[in-house]
């Protein structure tokens, strides 16, 4: 199918985009890479009357090395981020996660900010935002604010972003020194949306006890979710793969999966637990290698 009729504006600056948004309000949608939006428009699942194209605002691909982490301009393509040397060095889990997004042809156009704002609960970048304590820089014609990622995702494809606001940049925080990471997902075919995914970061103190843990699941609820129950069970404990099998049982407390055309809710819950054990095991291995 083809998109319904709309009017198109090419924003020349962020301020211009905000001004257009405040004029057109609920009728307008921001267009960046369009890899989810245009597909939805081709199906006429989305019928915005106005598109405001921000993909050509000066130097759309920008990644900045900051003290606490790496800042990514929202319009940066996923492919650019995936291959950025600073991002790969400081946030290897993020680079690995991006590799799982669709196919390279999609990543050449799809943006980091677009995937976050689209808020598909099975997608990687919202989950990485929770894993890496991301902060979102948000702007409207009248206001600027910083919002933590944990306040951003409301439910399926729905975020706290207001209709006059635009996501400007994302600060992904670097995990503690001497930490390791793990990321596993299951999809029907390479490049498909994950049926279930799990990501973990672990840091060890001098006694090999866990001093820091982050566990995030995606594809198992209406938003990506932090498995705080699993984290709490791990922090302060001496880690081993055997111990993770026990700790990951708490995954069932955060999984709120529904059955769909692909798999049952029971399958999602079981796989979430197994993938969490694997993600934690990889994180432990890398944390030991780093310390």
């Amino acid at each position, binding site marked *: *199918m*083809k*998109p*319904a*009729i*709309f*009017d*198109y504006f*090419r924003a020349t600056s962020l301020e211009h985009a905000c001004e257009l948004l405040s004029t057109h309000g609920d009728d307008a949608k921001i*267009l960046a890479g*369009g*890899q989810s939006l*245009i*597909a939805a*428009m*081709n*199906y006429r699942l989305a019928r915005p009357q106005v*598109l405001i*194209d921000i*993909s*050509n605002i000066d130097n759309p691909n920008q990644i900045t090395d900051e003290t606490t982490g790496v800042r990514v301009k929202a319009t940066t393509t996923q*492919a650019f981020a995936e291959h950025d040397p600073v991002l790969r060095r400081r946030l290897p889990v993020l680079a690995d996660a991006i590799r799982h997004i*669709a*196919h*390279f*042809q*999609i990543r*050449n*156009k799809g943006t980091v900010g677009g995937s976050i704002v689209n808020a598909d609960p099975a997608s990687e970048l919202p989950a990485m935002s929770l894993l890496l304590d991301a902060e979102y820089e948000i702007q409207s014609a009248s206001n600027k604010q910083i919002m933590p990622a944990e306040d951003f995702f409301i439910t399926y494809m729905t975020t706290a972003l207001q209709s006059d606001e635009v996501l400007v940049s994302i600060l992904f925080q670097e995990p503690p020194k001497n930490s390791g990471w793990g990321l596993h997902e299951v999809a029907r*075919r*390479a*490049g498909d949306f994950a049926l279930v995914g799990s990501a973990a970061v672990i840091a060890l103190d001098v006694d090999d006890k866990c001093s820091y843990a982050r566990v995030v699941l995606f594809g198992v609820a209406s938003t990506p979710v932090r498995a705080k129950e699993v984290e709490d069970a791990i922090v302060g404990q001496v880690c081993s793969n055997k111990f993770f099998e026990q700790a990951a049982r708490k995954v069932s407390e955060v999984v709120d999966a529904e059955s769909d055309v692909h798999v049952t809710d029971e399958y999602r819950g079981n796989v979430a637990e197994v993938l969490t054990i694997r993600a934690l095991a990889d994180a432990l291995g890398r944390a030991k290698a780093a310390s």
Partner: protein
Amino acid sequence: MVDKKKISLNVNGVTYDKEIEPRTLLSDFLRHHLDLTGTHVGCEHGICGSCTILMEGLPVRSCLTFALQAEGKAIETIESLDTDGELSSLQNAFWENQGLQCGFCTPGILMSMKAFLKDNPKPSRDEIREALSGNLCRCTGYHDIVDSVVAAAEAALSSGSAEQA
């Protein structure tokens, strides 16, 4: 009713000036407005890869791109590969190895592989399979397509120019 917009687009080194509805997809612009029908339209939601073209040298889905978004960017389509009817080494490798059956998916595969081989001139068969995963072929089972890409890589390396694809 929305007014038509003027568009100036550089495709295969030629600049075209047209007036289009903003909702015109790049795939439809190429096919219906420029008569460049080598770019095929399959699923229209980014899955099948038939409509893959190069934008600024990078393969993208022309069905998930509005023509207006391509303004100011160099577009290359399947029609740019041959030289006055003489096949490029990439096309020739597909010809020699029967890397197609019905041929519907072939333009998208060739554009994807042109960019892939430029980035990775000596790929393994596994890397080729992964790179092909964004282009669906419903006839061949991919074996001969992988053979074709291997042959294209070898031909480019032996001629000393991976750019020649």
